[in-house]
């Protein structure tokens, strides 16, 4: 493990698919979260524990996360205030997630990504209001990958291009944003871990067991979603990252996937779609949605599948 000097080129050292069901933080019972749970969703939580152990062996400076729960319709926005402290209450699951957060932001890198994105023609702005409440998707993905919050973060909003146009347009925009993110990281001299904060299939049950952690109620919403999730995981495990992008429009539509927020596309583009298998730490369902915890050890990869196209 070697620390880079400022003159060295920065790089993405790992990229993670890090879904954000609040149920996982709830079941972990960290001191920051008010509700208490007996247990629940162990398969996914144990997967996150394996990811945490793996990241502990990496030398990195910053976490860059894109969350679909900071949804912006006018361009992409990036947190750019050095310190946020507050209470995040999930509007859908307030009985599970009322989390007291205290986090640091790498404002320099946030500005650099913003500048690179605007230079590439993607409307992007900085969020500098200190009263802003950080979205729970960002918080959950960051907490589950590093409960000690040992690194500063850069949090990027999810532009709603899928809803405004279609998944193809979203992909074009997120590929540009991913490229801009990579360029900014390389120029910064920093070593970054990327988090795509999204589930795979994402149709929820609209009812909940009286005890949320009663696992006898937990299963995938339907078989169609499960088949799609398995297809994507097969591609991930085989390192066929370009095919993931190629299938994204159909997958997003037919599995009602949270990839509509663009996080996975952004991350695959930022890591330049290497021919690199992802390590699937876990797959499991949360209130019917399909969630995979995946790690790509990008630092170990030297080849690119089709980076010339990017």
């Amino acid at each position: 493990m070697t620390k880079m000097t400022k003159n060295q080129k920065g790089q993405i050292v790992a990229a993670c698919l890090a879904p954000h069901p609040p149920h996982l933080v709830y079941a972990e019972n960290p001191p920051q979260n008010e509700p208490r749970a007996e247990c629940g969703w162990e398969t996914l939580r144990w997967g996150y524990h394996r990811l945490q152990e793996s990241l502990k062996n990496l030398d990195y400076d910053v976490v860059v996360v894109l969350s679909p729960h900071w949804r912006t319709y006018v361009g992409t926005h990036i947190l750019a205030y050095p310190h946020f402290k507050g209470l995040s209450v999930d509007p859908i699951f307030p009985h599970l997630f009322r989390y007291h957060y205290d986090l640091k932001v790498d404002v320099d890198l946030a500005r650099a990504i913003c500048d690179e994105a605007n230079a590439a023609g993607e409307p992007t702005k900085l969020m500098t209001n200190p009263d802003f409440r950080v979205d729970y998707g960002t918080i959950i993905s960051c907490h589950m990958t590093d409960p000690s919050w040992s690194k500063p973060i850069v949090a990027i909003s999810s532009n709603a291009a899928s809803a405004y146009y279609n998944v193809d347009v979203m992909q074009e925009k997120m590929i540009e944003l991913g490229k801009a993110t990579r360029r900014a990281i390389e120029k910064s001299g920093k070593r970054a871990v990327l988090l795509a904060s999204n589930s795979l299939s994402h149709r929820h049950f609209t009812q909940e067991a009286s005890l949320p952690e009663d696992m006898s109620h937990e299963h995938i919403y339907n078989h169609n979603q499960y088949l799609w999730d398995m297809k994507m995981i097969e591609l991930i495990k085989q390192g066929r990252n370009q095919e993931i992008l190629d299938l994204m429009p159909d997958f997003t539509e037919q599995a009602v996937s949270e990839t509509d927020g663009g996080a996975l596309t952004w991350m695959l583009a930022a890591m330049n779609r290497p021919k690199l298998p992802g390590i699937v730490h876990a797959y499991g369902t949360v209130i019917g949605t399909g969630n995979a915890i995946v790690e790509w050890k990008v630092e170990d990869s030297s080849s690119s599948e089709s980076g010339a196209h990017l």
Partner: protein
Amino acid sequence: MIANSSSTLNPVLKGFVLPGLPQPLLTPEANAGYKKLRAAFEQVRGEIEALNPDVILIYSTMWPSILGHQVQARPELTWNHVDEEFHDLGSIPYTFQFDASLAHQIVKEGSVRGLMMKATDYNGFPVDTGSVVALKLVNSNLKIPAVILSSNIYSDRAETVVLGKATLQALRAQKKTAVAIIVSSLSNRLHSEFIKPSEDKIHSLKDQEWNAKILEFLEKGRLEDVAQLSRQIHKEARVKKVGNFKPFWWLSSLMGPHNRYTGEIKAYEAIYGVGAAVVGLTPALTAARDLEFDEDSPEHYSGERNVLASMSSMGPGMSSQTLSAGEELGDSGNE
């Protein structure tokens, strides 16, 4: 002529359509249109003060829910709100009072009618920008307690109509009067690039034409006609962020599913491209136009029918799509 002043017919004294974006609250001077909207909000505030209802009911399209329908039941909420999109316009400190008793009554009535209902009572709960803007502008210094209902992203007409009826039933059970507000834009497509306030305009001519059609109906008091057009409005003038365009289903089933209203368009302007209208609807004795409506008015929500399931997996019982299945046989089928 106000037909309902005694509240014997319906405890909802008046209905309003209000936009939810923060510009009229935070930057009314930035654009002449924002200023007109702000003035219209203040007009609504004056009317509410004169009516002096027991409660302000809000159905907000900017509070999405998944686990059924959430109802704000915290007696008081204090926060310093920042909009996730327009955070650069400033923070919005607020303290709001809510009618917890009525909120729980709505939850009870909705549950009896088959809806998944949840009372929401948590410190720090994120009240949506639209509700914050509405309550800051139309309830300032009035201190009228409010109830906010979420908009379930998956629900469709039957579920929303039943929610409106449950809300009405709760008002009657507690013998309370109300004004009903839907927080919703008309067309909802924002400009996707950053613009100056002086450059603001409705996003497209098509959106403008649909907004004009909706406003034409509302000005004539044709509330149920707009409700019946909701699916078409969703298709033509709404970005598909949720399953359907629902607020007028709730409002019409709450106030009465007909066209006997006096409508007043207090303002219609663009906010960052969306169609933002402030509209008042007052119960009246006569209708501008009465049409036959071709959709059921369900009293009870029976859940998803799972019409794509195989026949072998279907249990016994009603499988028809109509909630009045079999009634036609009772009318004439045995004769």
